[in-house]
């Protein structure tokens, strides 16, 4: 009887846990000192402050001040506060005043704050 009781409780705990993981967004934060050569991929959210040579892909990407990406950045929503040298592709792109961009930008909606330094080709696609 005691065993049966405990096995009844366990699923309850498990379902609560499952429910929590379903409702929360997987958020990855990569700090300043991280250096990546290769590709970085996530299904939800990346806060990136490091250096990357290669590709970065996610649903939402925040390239923080001081970050540097040489290569390709692909996401639904990208906020750029750092430096990018390469191709950027997103539905929504927010370029902040601290951003420095060189390369190609493919977008559906773009928002640029003054102060940013952009030397790039822009491609609008609906």
């Amino acid at each position: 009887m005691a065993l049966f009781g405990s096995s009844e409780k366990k699923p309850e705990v498990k379902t609560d846990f499952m429910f929590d993981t379903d409702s929360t967004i997987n958020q990855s934060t990569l700090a300043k000192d991280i250096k990546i050569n290769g590709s970085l991929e996530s299904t939800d959210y990346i806060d990136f402050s490091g250096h990357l040579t290669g590709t970065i892909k996610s649903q939402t990407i925040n390239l923080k001040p001081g970050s540097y990406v040489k290569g390709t950045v692909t996401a639904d929503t990208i906020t750029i506060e750092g430096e990018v040298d390469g191709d950027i592709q997103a539905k929504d792109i927010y370029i902040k005043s601290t951003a420095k961009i060189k390369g190609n930008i493919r977008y559906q909606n773009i928002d640029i704050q003054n102060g940013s330094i952009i030397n790039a080709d822009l491609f609008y696609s609906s």
Partner: protein
Amino acid sequence: MDENNTEMDENNSELASDEIQSTPIDNDSKAVNIGSGVRVDGRIEGAETSDVSGTLTGTLKSSNININSKGAFSGDMSGQEITISGNVDGEINSESYLIVNNSANIKGVIEYASLQVSYGARIQGTLRHRGSVQSYTPISDDEIKEDEISENQESDQ
């Protein structure tokens, strides 16, 4: 009273005839205003403020430029502070502020010092920041050698 009145009338008529004969007062405001529905084709230089709500084709040089939401411009424009809310096809050269509003539709080359773009604006083309060192791909030694070789071959023939 009657005499005075006639005198006044004479004076007035004199003034009126003077006004008709004299040319209109010079406009020193250096302002260009192209209303909606108006089409202009040509070159505008030395203007201080230019407001375009109509269609302007050609070259526009003005300190302040406003291409309003109904306005359309095609050609080259250069100025200090430029605000785009309408259609532009061509080259934009801004020495200080360039503001692109959400109703703007730009195709071409944009050279700017400070740029602000509102969410919703469409830009198709090249952005160049003034003051940035533009990267030119240097001619590699191989290409020079190839050129020399081809020249030599031509001279041999």
